[in-house]
């Protein structure tokens, strides 16, 4: 009698189901009564991006102005202005090796001298109105200079309120003490 066995099995499954929901009924709730209670799981919150400061200097971002984030951003919401800090000869930079017979060193077609060009951020503009929070900029940054902020209570009444200058934010944060975004 496979039909009867199936029926008994089916009926038993109904009781099992009732048991599951019955147990869940008495277990504690998972909902946070939000305005009355604070949420504490902000470690994984992905807010807008923020600059991360250097370990030795809380006022300077780690950013090396490679502009990979600008290239990676699909919404085009990042704009970086930089200034040249200096050109210094570098011992560890490898010389470009070109065929020595073709190009004479010192001629106008010769490769540039071995040197390191250092730039620093003059302003790092984020237009948060356009951002889709994909996080590609954070992923591509080679020096981990970008991180998601944990600013949950972000509100504003105009578009201009969401156009951030991140360098300024970094300095303000450093002045306020403590480095929240990391």
């Amino acid at each position: 009698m496979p039909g009867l066995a199936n029926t008994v099995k089916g009926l038993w499954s109904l009781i099992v189901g009732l048991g599951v929901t019955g147990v869940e009924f008495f277990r504690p709730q998972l909902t946070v009564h939000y305005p009355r209670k604070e949420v504490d799981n902000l470690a994984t919150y992905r807010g807008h991006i923020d600059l991360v400061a250097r370990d030795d200097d809380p006022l300077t971002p780690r950013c090396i102005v490679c502009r990979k984030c600008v290239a990676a951003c699909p919404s085009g919401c990042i704009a970086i202005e930089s200034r040249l800090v200096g050109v210094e000869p570098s011992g560890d930079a490898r010389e470009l090796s070109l065929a020595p017979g073709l190009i004479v060193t010192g001629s106008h077609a010769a490769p540039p001298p071995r040197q390191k060009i250092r730039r620093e951020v003059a302003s790092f503009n984020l237009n948060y109105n356009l951002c889709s929070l994909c996080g590609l900029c954070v992923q591509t940054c080679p020096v981990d200079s970008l991180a998601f902020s944990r600013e949950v209570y972000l509100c504003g009444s105009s578009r201009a309120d969401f156009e951030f200058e991140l360098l300024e934010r970094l300095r303000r944060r450093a002045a306020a003490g403590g480095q929240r975004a990391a």
Partner: protein
Amino acid sequence: MTLTEIINHPLTRLVLGLVLILVFVGVNGLILVWMERKVVGFIQRRPGPYEVGPHGILQSLVDGVKLIAKQLVTPRGADRFLFWLGPMLSVTPVVICFLPIPFSPALTAMDVNLGLLLILAFSSVNVLALCAAGWGSNNKYALIGAARAVSQSVAYEIPLLLSVLCIAFQTGSLSLSAIAQGQSQGVLSWNLWVQPLAFVIFFISATAETNRAPFDLPEAESELTAGFHTEYSGMGFGLFFLAEYTYMIVVCSVATALFLGAHDGPFLPGPWWFVLKVYALILALMWFRWTFPRVRFDQLLNLCWKWLIPLGLVNLLATALVLKLVE
């Protein structure tokens, strides 16, 4: 005519009973909607309505105000008469269904000796209301919902009657008060112990008759938008909603009176026990709703025609046989 005579007059009693029933129906509708939402909340481990009043107790009242304030729209091409007859017809007979329910020997609005028949007859009117609403809406979802409601109701009325008949055979009466009196000698005198199969059949059929999940095919949201009440706005929908919850009380009251000893119980006065048992059954209905997924239509009818009706018939025959042998 003295005051006592006026109060004891059947007509006064009937009018008083009707007024009390209307109050009971309204208040119960509010409480049950709140209770249902709380139950589903707890089962899904969230608080349910919480903001309006302490623990959201006033939520359904506020929802009711919202429904009353909404505009009543009649869709183009609808049968205006049938469309508005539907919701009214679904609520009105409910009030009559409460008349013979024995909350206690004294607290029975109208003690008729055919009370059970009265309830069964008038609760079937609901199907007609759903049918009128579905047909009058001029909407394919509503029409399919109505067709489902009718075939489901026709099918499940049979096992319902078969299980009720077992009790009627056994007690030799169709009066709910008499049936309740018969089981007032403690827990062991309840009909549940004599007719467990009839109780199970009755409860399953009652779930189907009240269109409750897992048998809520007439209003299956995922397939039919809202089934027969797709086109109703405001209190048109509100009345169907009220009727659904009131029918839940009716079937659970009948189940209590037939199987669970009605107002029988220790310590507390009778009516409290009655209401307590009714609410326990309703809680079980809600528990079913948020546990079991909706059945398919063929499964629904298979369950009825292949299982409940044969089992009900066997149970009825066995009851008749045993009664004959005992005599």
